[in-house]
């Protein structure tokens, strides 16, 4: 089901993805327009992370296409997909524990597209001021909130045009989640396209332009946050634990 909307920057077209013998995605299709924030929601284990890993090339889909700006990237290695402008912020943060905060940022550094204002240390530290004071601290000793800021900052250093944000609010204190929401809103305001996977419904509804609800590796519902708010049955059926 390739969308007729040619504005789309990213089109995930009926992908099937498996880890070894256990298939997780059964024909997921999603679309992201430039500058849009699209949310993937659903309970644990429905395939949100796997969808992101499929887009990033970390777990390539067995079937289906991932079209990025008109090119099928589904069989490319992750580093090429990153170089084409997609940045991945994993749920587990995956800070390099033995590297300092600054070193974590430095290895992810990639030049911005010509003519664009790119991300480097000053911009990253302006967005996450807390990181500047701990730039020489080892990644392994940071708090959860600091690690979450760093993992987003690190991915921004690669100057992505699309950000895959996997469960950023997971395990963070409510106050930190609130700060994080503001940061993501700021990123969105810069024109960055975002795919956001979340369990925290409030977090999602305040940021997303469109929402896909996943269950058992399939898309079960698509709509705007307003549609979803109006439709409590859907929320109960797919999201309430």
């Amino acid at each position, binding site marked *: 089901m390739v969308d007729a909307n040619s504005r789309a920057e990213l089109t995930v077209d009926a992908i099937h993805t498996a880890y070894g013998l256990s298939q997780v995605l059964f024909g997921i299709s999603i679309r992201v327009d430039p500058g849009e924030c699209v949310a993937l929601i659903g309970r644990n284990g429905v395939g949100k992370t796997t969808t992101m890993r499929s887009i990033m090339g970390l777990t390539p889909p067995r079937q289906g296409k991932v079209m990025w700006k008109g090119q099928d990237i589904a069989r490319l290695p992750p580093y090429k997909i990153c170089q084409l402008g997609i940045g991945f912020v994993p749920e587990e943060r995956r800070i*390099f524990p033995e*590297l300092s905060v600054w070193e974590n940022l430095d290895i992810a550094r990639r030049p911005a597209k010509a003519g664009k204002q790119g991300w480097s240390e000053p911009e990253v530290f302006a967005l996450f001021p807390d990181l500047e004071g701990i730039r020489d601290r080892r990644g392994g000793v940071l708090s959860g909130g600091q690690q979450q800021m760093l993992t987003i900052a690190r991915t921004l250093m690669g100057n992505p045009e699309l950000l895959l944000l996997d469960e950023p609010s997971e395990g963070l204190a409510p106050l930190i989640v609130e700060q994080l929401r503001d940061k993501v809103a700021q990123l969105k305001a810069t024109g960055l396209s975002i795919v956001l996977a979340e369990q925290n419904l409030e977090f999602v509804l305040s940021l997303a332009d469109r929402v896909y609800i996943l269950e058992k590796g399939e898309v079960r519902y698509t709509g705007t946050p307003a549609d979803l708010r109006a439709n409590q049955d859907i929320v109960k059926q797919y999201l309430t634990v």
Partner: protein
Amino acid sequence: MTLTVFLTNTFYALALAMNMFVIASGLNLIFGVLRVINFAHGMFYMFGAYIIFTVTKTWGAPFWIGVLASGAGLAVIALVIERFLLRRLYDKEHLMQLLFTFAIVLLMSDAAKMIWGTDQYSVGYPPALKGAVRLGPTIVPQYLVFLCIVGPLLAIAMWLAVDRTRWGRIVRAATQDREMLSALGVNVPAVYAMVFTIGSALAGIGGALAAPRIALAPGMDATIINECFIIVIIGGLGNMWGSFLGALAFGFVVQFGTIFVPNWQDVLPYLLMLAVLLIRPWGLLGRPELSR
């Protein structure tokens, strides 16, 4: 033991240690980044020694050209092995990698016999370093002084490269989480190929540097690979300064052991390893895996 004997042996221990460090640091680098235990490292060392023999003795080139040729030759061999064969095994279990590198040992061992035969060769000190140096009450060969300088220089160069350059940061990140690193735009397979190539070139250079002080013969690879493993394990797997300390400990134990307990000479390095592992199972400068 007189002071002169003590100083002389201290010096020989240092020279041996620094030569061993050049070789072991390559094995350690490869293990630290790729997590591959390269049994062929000793064979790479032997090829380095044979290559410098051919380049300097048969072709008559200067010693330094021979050292470069050994390094470059092993770099090429390693790159071919990594690109076409070894890279297919990174995701496989360690046993597969061990068997593979052991197969490389067998292949290269026969190749060496076909190229160089089974005769014993010697290379001799390079003309510029043939002399002797007075060191306090003792006189030592210039060439061994040179080895004592090369070791620390290499250690400092490696430390700068790994600790102070972006390339080194990427290499360190690859030891911690290669999947994440690739998602951040780094071509991790290319990093692996480069590390394997550099580490193997160090074996070749180490072999070339050792050639003037040893006899070149089939089987010289087997001794050295055991000794390199001992050094790397003593120092702590993957830790460069650990290998440096391990090489020093090895050099002193072997040199002084030969004097005091000559009958125990072959066992002493193993006893040293045993002693270190009993006290610090993760090596002198290594860290327990759990802290990662």
